[in-house]
């Protein structure tokens, strides 16, 4: 088995309700994704741990969550009135599950090594924090040295983060875009690999093995 020369810190995140939004697709409905993109964790780790450019990716554990819809009417601060109600999709614990659980893998380097000291810490992640969404517990599980595998990607990461994550080949890219901060107040959308892409890379990123030719 091919072992990659990369070490990841495995963290476990648990929450009662979380909404990591797809980008707003017009209208009044905001769907949520079932993975935690690198861009979301980058912002979170910067805010909570002061890590400027951490590389981490997350996946909600199957069977721990189900989707529901929360409808609210945002306030128009200027007019002092309510805007059109918005339906927000979010994840909540599945029947029989105590919490929505996600596995987070952060690339171990000089900056992130302190994450291994977390026994349990509260962080917030995703949308509508003011309504109580995204309050999460994060705890450190251990180090992971992934093997190399060919298969279907189960998360979202920027294309230019592939090398750092140990992805050595992109066989079939499924592109989308993730927001990338370029300053305190602005940013751009960068091309990213989305779920379903076929890659050769660390097994922790792989949902299912790809059995055919590349």
């Amino acid at each position, binding site marked *: 088995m091919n072992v990659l020369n990369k070490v990841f810190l495995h963290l476990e995140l648990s929450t009662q309700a979380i909404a990591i939004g797809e980008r707003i697709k017009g209208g009044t409905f905001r769907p949520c994704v079932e993975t935690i993109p690198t861009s979301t964790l980058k912002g979170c780790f910067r805010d909570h741990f002061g890590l400027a450019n951490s590389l981490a990716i997350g996946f909600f554990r199957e069977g721990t969550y189900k989707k*529901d819809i929360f409808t609210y009417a945002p306030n128009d601060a200027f007019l002092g009135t309510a805007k059109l109600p918005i339906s927000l999709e979010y994840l909540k614990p599945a029947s029989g599950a105590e919490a929505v659980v996600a596995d987070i893998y952060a690339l171990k380097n000089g900056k992130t090594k302190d994450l291994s000291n977390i026994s349990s810490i509260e962080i917030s992640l995703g949308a509508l924090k003011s309504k109580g969404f995204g309050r999460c517990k994060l705890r450190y599980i251990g180090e992971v040295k992934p093997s190399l595998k060919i298969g279907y990607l189960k998360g979202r990461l920027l294309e230019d983060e592939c090398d750092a994550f140990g992805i050595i080949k992109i066989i079939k890219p499924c592109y989308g875009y993730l927001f990338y901060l370029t300053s305190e107040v602005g940013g751009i959308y960068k*091309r990213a690999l989305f779920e379903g892409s076929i890659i050769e890379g660390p097994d922790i990123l792989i949902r299912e093995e790809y059995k055919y030719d590349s």
Partner: protein
Amino acid sequence: MNNKPFIAELHDIGKLVDRQALKQAGIDIKGHTFHKFDFSQLGISTPFSPSWYAQFSDEIGSLTSTKVPRNYLPDILLTRIADELASAISRTWGSKEFQNRKKGGEFVVEGIYVLWNPNYYQREKEKGKKWAAFTTPSELKDMFEFIENCASYTEVFEQFRDNLKLTPEDKSIPFNIVSLYTHLELTGKIYRILKRHSHVIEDNGKLYLEYLGKKIQTINEAAGGRIDKPTQRGKWIYRLVFCYINFPHSFSRLQDLNILRKRTDLIEAFSEDVKIKDYVLFFTDDFMCLFVPKEDEVRIHDLLEPFLKAGFIIDYKEMEAELNLLTSSMERAYEKFHSLPTRRYLKLCEKRAAPDFPSQVCPPLCDSCQMRHGKERIKDHIREYLCDTCYNIRQMGEPAREYAGWEEKGLRAAWMKITLDQEQLLKTIYRLYEKYVETHPAMQNVSSNDKKVLKESFRPLAVQIDFVKDYKLLLMTFKKKIYQIKNSKEQFIFTKESFLYPIENYNEFAIFKVYSSKNVLSVLDLFCNLLKEYFSQCLEDSPIKLSLSIAHVKYPYQEHWRFLSNPQNIINIQSPRSAKLSIDIAQYKLLREKIRKEDQKLAHFLHRLVDIEVETKSNMAVMFEILNNRRKFPTILELTQNGLSVRQILDFYKLTREAEIS
């Protein structure tokens, strides 16, 4: 040299001849080809058009043959290769004993056997249709005249449509499962592609066909041997490509549904384009199966450019292999190939063809596709950011305009989609074929080894094409019959205003008003009845699936579509935040029969069972409660014993008990 065209489809026209009837009329015919026919019996001379020589296709295996004029040899050889590729079961498989028995006519039966609808031939016959087009000496003369004068392959299909549909490509069990119509369509397409991408060369007085620098003289040289012949490598490599035509757009406005029209229009135009249509072996509204040469000869991106230009993303599965190894059951062949020690060539890949997406996009992103920069567009005081592609799609028209006007208080709408699952289709076809080989009375005296070989040599492509044709027929019949359903007062339940097909010619998708559960049940009943009529043998594992998403009119379109796009079972229904149900036909029939909406006590009991399930997380506890109440609610016990969960029963109850609105 005769200037008439060579029509490969005519090589099998003799299969429409009723030899028995002609024998009684004193005409002696051997086999289905006429190259050895004694024309003096009819008092006419031998035809001499190029198409006539297609009759020799079974005789010509090499460009060195002297049986026909040299200039016709390449066309005949290519026809022979195409014919073999188009057949569902290779004729060269099986023991000598089996082949001899087959040649002796032991397995010959009348008419086509449709695997999913075995009564098809009998029903058509009862309607007065017949397989044979030529039953008298005079009609036989007409056939030779047709061979002599036919100017285009379309004439073959136009003139003999009904006969071709009822005649199997091979009349012996279990080979009689593909219509001659489809076999000839497929043979013709493959022949024309092979011809387009090869050329005739002469070297030292010898004739060759060359494709991508590979010269061949014989069928085996071009196509290679069977999969279990490790050294019989074929020189000509082609590709079979399954294209799933997807789009990244989300539906936030009704005009976004235009993307469906765009896709349907593009597929139709693509499959009718004179330069392209032969590459398309078959298609549905979101899928195409292509037969194309290697990438050096035809670039997939170039071929699919019209789709990419319109913003579609095409996920495709590509099998690239020696001609004789190409099959639509790609995964099976791949596994088999890699289980054998072989130096032959077969590759299987998953790929994606997509428009060129930039590495960076300045905000804002397009609200709809999220793949390009969105420009500000303001309509009716609503500001949106859309890229040019998505904006152009919005401008294509206003589908389902009536839907926007559905404002009756309390009205709910159902979004309906019928889907053909291509992967399940292959599994179902294999199951049906294997069952046919195993259980048909005529096969009882065939050795288990020959049966095994018959199963292994099955190539389902042509059968898939026949299935897809019946699927399209089901969709059209559904569209017609939905407006004929009457209630107990003999009034039509649906009208063109209450049951909309928002996209013209896209019959998989509809939206209808739900005044009561009767509307929903009528749609489900019609679907089940048609499935039974057209696909009676695959009710358990039907690749045709129906999804209904029922909600108030303003419910997010995108959420409807997400549910419709991912059917889990044959019947799928959701009423968001209330119930979600995926069941098969048998389960539906059972629920339909046993669950009555008036039964309030049953509802309370079902809710109690669900509570027990949630609290105890134990099926045992639920079953215990059901058994305790078996006298009061015998239905629940019966339903659970038939594999339905308590939650499914409750969801069905909820979905069908909705109060009627006036």
